[in-house]
């Protein structure tokens, strides 16, 4: 084995990088908040640590080539298997979100569009393909994958997208196909199929990783993953409290570790600390939105490039968006993970994400949230380039209004492509909606 990549990795990821990131955290802790604290609570104390944690993850990726095996995976992939085999796991969707918040997504996705990829395709996919083609990224450098792993439990789009990546990188692509759950329950043959694919993936993963899967290690990672998901869920559920200690805009930022570092022990520590801070806020009566008058639900992906705009716009009117079907997705399955029956429970966990379930199930989730969180309304982000999440929203909105008497707004935008964000139209629609809410 060539010692250079290993030395480079250790020096940058374990020595130099952490020192630099610690200094950056220290500086961030002393910077005045960037958002409007007349209406919003001061930023979470943990925010600089989140940034540090996420930056460390991408730093490890930057130096992974030649030292660690790298897997590019979809957000719903069974990361426990990969972690247990020592892969560095990269989530192109998360990278897309980082590009979105950093407002560089359009520049990067244009690279894909110039290569012929239609503007009607998922803007995460375009951002990722653009990054792969051009090498452009705000995180320094993306490591090349040794393996691609696409799980269809969020959409079919990932299947088409990862096939493109497979052609570019010429590396193996594992597809884990999780049949869509139309009714209440997945059929037994669908669960059996997913379980079998998990088992079939192992020899391929072992071959690429160059080592055998250690069941004990897998169980350990499973436990850590379950614990992190439970903590995340607890944090989200604290928002039932009035005023809500954090908003969904905070959640969107704080969810990065549960997506990309699930299965890592530091993720558990991180969420334990976040939970503590959230509880402190509750004890002190601090709400994410000062003077919280109305509480809303957010459906669908965030509009990454306008988080601050939306958060401030709503907060100015005393509106707190306290719960979201999206952030909830990384917590709601925690009870299904059973480290004592890992294979079967993994099959069930990975077939049941909200995006792999029917439109009626999503409505039922929203109804439940309306009651449990005492909501006054809902914003359903109709996300132009995410069809699986958006189809069904028109009926869901109508039923929320008709059957629950909950005002609901369909807000047209896109999660990562700011060219389709019509600011004036959004502002007008939001203003009319807030008027309807009486704020």
């Amino acid at each position, binding site marked *: 084995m060539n010692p250079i990549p290993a030395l480079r990795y250790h020096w940058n990821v374990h020595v130099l990088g952490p020192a630099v990131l610690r200094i950056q955290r220290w500086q961030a802790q002393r910077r005045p908040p960037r958002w409007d604290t007349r209406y919003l609570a001061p930023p979470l104390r943990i925010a600089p640590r989140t940034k540090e944690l996420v930056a460390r993850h991408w730093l490890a990726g930057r130096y992974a080539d030649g030292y660690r095996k790298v897997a590019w995976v979809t957000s719903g992939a069974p990361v426990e298997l990969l972690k247990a085999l020592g892969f560095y796991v990269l989530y192109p969707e998360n990278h897309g979100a980082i590009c979105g918040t950093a407002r560089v997504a359009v520049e990067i996705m244009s690279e894909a569009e110039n*290569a*012929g*990829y*239609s503007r*009607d*395709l*998922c803007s995460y*996919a375009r951002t990722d393909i653009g990054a792969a083609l051009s090498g452009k990224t705000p995180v320094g450098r993306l490591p090349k994958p040794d393996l691609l792993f696409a799980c*269809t439990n969020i*959409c*079919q*789009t990932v*299947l*088409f*997208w990862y*096939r*493109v990546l*497979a*052609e570019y990188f010429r590396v193996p*692509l594992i*597809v884990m*196909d999780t*049949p*869509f759950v*139309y*009714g209440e329950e997945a*059929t037994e*043959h*669908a669960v*059996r*199929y997913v379980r*079998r*694919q998990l088992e*079939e993936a192992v020899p391929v993963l072992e071959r690429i990783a160059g080592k055998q899967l250690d069941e004990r290690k897998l169980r350990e990672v499973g436990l850590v993953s379950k614990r992190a998901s439970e903590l995340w869920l607890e944090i989200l559920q604290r928002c039932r409290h009035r005023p809500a200690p954090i908003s969904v805009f905070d959640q969107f930022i704080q969810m990065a570790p549960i997506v990309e570092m699930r299965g890592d022990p530091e993720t558990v520590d991180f969420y334990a600390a976040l939970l503590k801070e959230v509880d402190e806020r509750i004890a002190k009566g601090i709400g994410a939105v000062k003077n919280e008058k109305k509480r809303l639900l957010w459906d669908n992906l965030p509009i990454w490039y306008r988080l601050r705009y939306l958060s401030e716009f709503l907060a100015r009117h005393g509106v707190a968006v306290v719960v979201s079907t999206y952030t909830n997705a990384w917590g709601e399955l925690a009870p299904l993970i059973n480290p004592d029956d890992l294979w079967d429970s993994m099959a069930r966990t990975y077939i049941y994400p909200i995006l792999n379930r*029917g*439109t*009626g199930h999503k*409505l039922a989730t929203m109804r439940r949230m309306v009651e449990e969180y005492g909501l006054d309304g809902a914003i359903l982000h*109709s996300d*132009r*380039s995410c*069809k*699986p999440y*958006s*189809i*069904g*929203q*028109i*009926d869901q909105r109508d*039923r929320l209004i008709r059957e629950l008497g909950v005002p609901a707004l369909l807000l047209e935008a896109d999660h990562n492509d700011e060219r389709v964000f019509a600011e004036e139209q959004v502002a007008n629609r939001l203003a009319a909606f807030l008027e309807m809410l009486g704020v």
Partner: protein
Amino acid sequence: MEPGPLPIPTRTATIRAWKERGGRIAAVLPIHYPRALLRAFGLLPVEVWGPPQVNAAYSAAHLQPYVCSIVGNALSFLHSGGLDVADVIVVPHACDSLQGLGSILLDFVRPRQPVFPFYIPRGRRESDLEFLADECRALYRGLAEVTGRSSSDDELMECIRREEEADALLAELHRRRPALPLSNRAFYHLVRAREYLPAETFTDLARAALDLPPADPDDGVPILLSGIVPEPMALLDSLSEMGATVVADDLACCGRRLYPPGTTDDPFRRMAERILNGPPDCTRGNSIAERLQHLIGMARRTGARGVVFYDVKFCEPELFDLPLLRKGLQEAGVPSVTIEVDLNEPLSHQALTRIEAFLEMVR
């Protein structure tokens, strides 16, 4: 009966005749599904590819404008009473949009007919085959429940053999396409009758077509047609007028459904095996490389000078594959052009001009 050299019964006449004989109708959405299984319950599968030119207002009450017109039109067609003749609706899974349609039909629209989603796996491993066979078994149970009928393995095998015979003739029609004395429009009229005719009627028709005296050598520019569905069918007339002959296709409704015969005696596995072994299709999990080889092979075999990718707007499965397919074809000396259509709009002048310019280039 439609005009042309062959007596092709219309969709309406076929449905009426079938119903008069006490048969039932299954309205089936794209793309892959086991025809034989439906027939085993006396259900005639009648496929719904759009259809074009319907009032899109109803679908707008359920679907955002960025959903493809195949799915939007199917919903509008259902609402306008177009599917009233159907006794069941089958929604195979192919993409996020069809998945969404199946889901809102079940959860919100709730048509009077029972709706059966049908999941197609995305690989060709033993586990995919086993799953698809189980999915066929689940559909069998569902249909048995709503029709109150059952079907023995022998009866099922009989239905499968009938479909295999029809598919073999369909494949033969495609193979002998350049020698058939049929215009672009007449050929696709014939092969697309497979979307609603009972297999046995289609078999007779296909035999009659294959017995027609061979055509004079065609001096049209040979091209391949790829995409989802050649709608509006006026496209085919326009191609003829521009001097192009579609010598083979990779259309989801046609060439991607030339299923080979099955090999096993278990009827459910056999139906599954046939679907999984069909020609490469992005919605069924084939890689871009497989599709590319298939297209290049088809072009070499038929002497096609280029490919017209005729796609439905917002169709992700196609849009993701296109750049690499086009690049690979270009490298193999097969140029291509892409046209995007909305089934509710007539073929645009701009689209025709682009095709014409392309034909000029490859002529």
